[in-house]
């Protein structure tokens, strides 16, 4: 489960936002724009004619001066202007080589990847041979066939570079053609050409742009190399490579300065193309801040006002917990508001609600794991009677590893695919219980046997991929049980499993709870699972607790309209084939909670009072309910009341 909180932002805006936040990106973009102007309109930047010679002796090999900003060369020509005009040669090279590379490489890669099979293998074989030839060799071959000129050399470079684009395009096509949206396009009946051009190609664009930026740098470098070797641009052209070559011949006599202007132009340009490529890649990349597992630094937490649950059997007690998340623009949304819960030894607390209701976030925050940049701003947490609200991360680690076990939705994802299952179970035992490796492995075998994994000793030696989903979840439970925790948190433990396996896992959890008398917090969206396993239920909506009650009360005497609505939408609650009851609309986003009761826009019992103020969490008997109308509305049908 993930708590998706940020509203969707257009990728284009996000892209430019990130580009302008990256200093190297800004530098490369500025340099790129200067080069572009120098190419399109060199007269705007240049101070002299690049070919105009000033042969009065004292003007040769001049250092930088007010008249010649970068000095003059051996013929008294203005270095600065020559470098500016050189940009045109560089861009012309890129234009020729890149056009050929893209026009040849991309369609070939698309075709090859889409067709697959023998055609693909043949194309890739030829491609790989070309790929392994030195680029300069190919350029020379073209020059030999045609006439020596920078443009002709660039045709050869373009052909060589097309192999890079073929490989990239093919790789992306192979991957994209397995995507469901491509299946959908085929099912719609679109032609292969349309699918390739309008479905796959746009998804290719981002990788191509990155590749093109980096290859552009390489093309400039190759062009300069060829010119430097005397087989590119002609000797008088203001080409950076030619300039560098001429300077090299003279710099022993006339000093190092002569190499600096063309050399710097070349270095800065190639560097900026590479940096541009990196910046684009970073800006396109997935929003890594959303799934970062970094934990927020502790900050001052406002104390809770509600007293904690007391008693020797209270394992975890949370009071008045607020958690806030700043979004990219710095606006703060409150993900959790005033969440309170407690769970006792031997008891299973079911936490239920739709995606985005804050179920998983509640558990993470209660255990000091609020993902960055979120933070707990108010509230108090007690674990085993001890105040743990302000513990440091290392203090928390000592508690979490030993006294809290966690079972996740995707057991396979939790197991490291490269490490044998036995070692993964044994590791925490070696750390937290100081067992030797041998003893820990033996205990791991016992644990696998306890969760009824057949043939446990052999299984210890297997890798996670050799486990089915159900067996992996058993191994996950074994890991969670390893240090005999006081609290077991199960976040959708059976959702990803087949329904016939789900029952086995729930039975197993009940069995280990019975044996170890641990407290279980069971997070699920499935009220059927709640009915099976929970003693008490906490219903969450919009980052708040809306109702807590015993399992029987939630199912037979719900007090909050949301609890009732959740029950009604279950297809199990409904015989026949008619229209299913729904909860209209959808879960609100944390950036825009509705005014007043957060469920009001979707509630069938809404009145003006509901939308004015947020209802308080009221105590009725031992239960809690957050609804201003809880006393007056009839949520249980007459016939059921009598039954």
């Amino acid at each position, binding site marked *: 489960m993930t708590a998706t909180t940020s509203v969707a932002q*257009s990728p284009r805006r996000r892209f430019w936002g990130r580009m302008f936040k990256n200093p190297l990106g800004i530098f490369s973009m500025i340099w790129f724009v200067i080069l572009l102007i120098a190419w399109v309109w060199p007269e705007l930047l240049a101070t002299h004619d690049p070919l105009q010679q000033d042969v009065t002796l004292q003007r040769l090999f001049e250092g930088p001066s007010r008249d010649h900003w970068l000095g003059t060369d051996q013929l008294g020509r203005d270095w600065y202007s020559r470098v500016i005009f050189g940009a045109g040669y560089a861009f012309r090279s890129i234009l020729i080589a890149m056009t050929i590379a893209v026009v040849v490489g991309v369609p070939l890669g698309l075709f090859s990847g889409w067709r697959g099979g023998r055609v693909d293998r043949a194309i890739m074989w030829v491609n790989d041979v070309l790929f392994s030839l030195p680029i300069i060799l190919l350029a020379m071959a073209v020059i030999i066939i045609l006439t020596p000129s920078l443009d002709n050399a660039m045709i050869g470079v373009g052909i060589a570079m097309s192999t890079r684009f073929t490989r990239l395009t093919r790789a992306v096509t192979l991957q994209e053609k397995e995507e469901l949206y491509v299946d*959908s396009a085929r099912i*719609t009946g679109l032609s292969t050409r*349309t699918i390739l051009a309008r*479905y796959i190609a*746009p998804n290719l664009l981002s990788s191509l742009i990155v590749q093109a930026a980096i290859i552009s740098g390489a093309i400039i470098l190759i062009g300069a190399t060829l010119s430097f070797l005397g087989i590119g641009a002609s000797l008088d052209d203001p080409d950076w490579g030619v300039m560098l070559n001429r300077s090299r011949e003279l710099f022993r006599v006339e000093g190092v300065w002569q190499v600096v202007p063309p050399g710097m132009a070349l270095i800065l340009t190639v560097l900026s193309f590479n940096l541009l490529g990196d910046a684009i890649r970073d800006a396109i990349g997935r929003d890594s801040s959303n799934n970062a597992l970094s934990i927020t630094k502790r900050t001052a937490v406002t104390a809770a006002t509600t007293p904690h649950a007391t008693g020797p059997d209270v394992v975890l007690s949370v009071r008045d917990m607020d958690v806030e998340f700043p979004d990219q623009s710095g606006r703060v949304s409150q993900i959790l508001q005033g969440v309170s819960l407690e769970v006792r030894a031997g008891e299973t607390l079911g936490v239920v609600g739709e995606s985005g209701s804050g179920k998983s976030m509640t558990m993470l925050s209660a255990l000091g794991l609020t993902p960055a940049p979120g933070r707990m701003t108010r509230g108090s947490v007690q674990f085993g009677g001890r105040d743990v609200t302000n513990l440091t991360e290392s203090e928390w680690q000592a508690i979490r590893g030993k006294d809290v076990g966690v079972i996740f939705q995707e057991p396979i994802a939790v197991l490291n695919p490269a490490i044998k299952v036995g070692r993964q179970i044994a590791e925490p035992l070696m750390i937290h219980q100081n067992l030797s490796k041998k003893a820990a492995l033996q205990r791991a075998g016992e644990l696998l046997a306890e969760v009824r994994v057949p043939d446990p000793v052999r299984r210890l030696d297997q890798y996670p991929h050799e486990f089915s989903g159900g067996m992996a979840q058993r191994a996950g439970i074994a890991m969670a049980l390893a240090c005999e925790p006081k609290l077991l948190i199960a976040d959708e433990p059976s959702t990803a499993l087949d329904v016939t396996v789900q*029952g086995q896992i729930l039975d197993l959890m009940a069995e280990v709870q019975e044996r170890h008398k641990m407290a279980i917090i069971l997070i699920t969206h499935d009220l059927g699972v709640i009915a099976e396993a929970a003693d008490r239920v906490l219903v969450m909506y919009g980052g708040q607790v809306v109702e807590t009650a015993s399992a029987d009360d939630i*199912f037979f005497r719900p007090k909050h309209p949301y609890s009732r609505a959740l029950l009604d*939408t279950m297809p199990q609650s409904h015989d026949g084939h008619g229209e299913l009851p729904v909860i209209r609309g*959808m879960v609100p986003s944390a950036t825009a909670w509705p005014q007043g009761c957060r469920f009001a826009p979707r509630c069938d019992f809404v009145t003006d009072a509901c939308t004015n103020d947020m209802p308080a969490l009221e105590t009725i008997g031992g239960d809690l309910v957050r609804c201003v109308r809880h006393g007056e509305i009839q949520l249980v049908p007459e016939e059921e009341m009598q039954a």
Partner: protein
Amino acid sequence: MSGSAFFEVDDLHVHFASRAKLFRETPPPVKAVNGISFSIEPGKTFGLVGESGSGKSTVARAILQLVDVHAGTIRLDGDDVTNVPRPKELAFRKKVQAVLQDPFSSLNQVHQTRRIIGDGITRHFKIKPGPEREQRIINLLDEVGMSTEFLDRYPYEMSGGQRQRVSIARALAVEPELIIADEATSALDVSIQSQVINVLQRVQAETGVAFLFIGHDLEVVKHVSDDVGVMYLGYLVEQGDADAIYEGPTHPYTEMLVASIPMPNPIMQASRRELRQSFNNDAEPPSPARMPPGCPFENRCPVALDICREEMPEPSPAHHGGQVRCHLHTSGPELGGESVVEFIKTEARGQVAV
């Protein structure tokens, strides 16, 4: 099966060849679908239910021409549509559409709703983008309960439920005769799932389109279907009227499936749990790559007979009017035409041998 049905799948087999290995014997092909037969009447819904690895999605992909059929025939309106040749593909696509599982990856992220729905209209009705196409798109959006403000939305600007509605509108755009819904509601929250199911049922009532509704949740499949088929490891183990099968399953696997659906009612769930636990022997289904010679459910079956280890049973008539593939009904003890349920309850723990 009669040859007159609107849509008919007859003895369908789909095998996936294993990759040839250097210096090693090529492993036998994985038999993903083994001799499946069913038919759908116009305007009706056939539900296909099974767990992961049962081959239910492969059936959908075979019908949709996304994987090759190894043996068997698929017929639509009397025409053979098994491995449709290129020139006839467009006509086939016009008749059969699909709504796929994952609302996140089944829509192209770079296209707006208008384009997603409109592409099929342009392709099949030769209506270029313009007022006429726009009006059709708006009507389709209206049909799935969405307003015109969604025309310019990209998939990432919509919720899972909204995306699935767009998928339905896209399928409806070509006015198909059959829509295959492959786990179309599985990724959605229960409350949203109900909304989407209602949309599907309303669409069927209005347009008379037939559905092949594939899912892992028997409760949902039963709700939307007239008939259901239950798949286990590539075999259709039971099929017939949806309500009759749910009320009186005749295959032990179907019974196990029903018993495994948790009820949102602690009292009913307590009795379901008891029934479920009578099945529970912690055995794993066999790997599709190494299928046993007999019935693949044999190692998990509480009432397995000796013959079950040796040969796969053939379909036989079941009391609910459908068919069942289980030796219990042909070689087993007399059931007196009764559901296997009571039999399992009373005899299960003793492991009957006949």
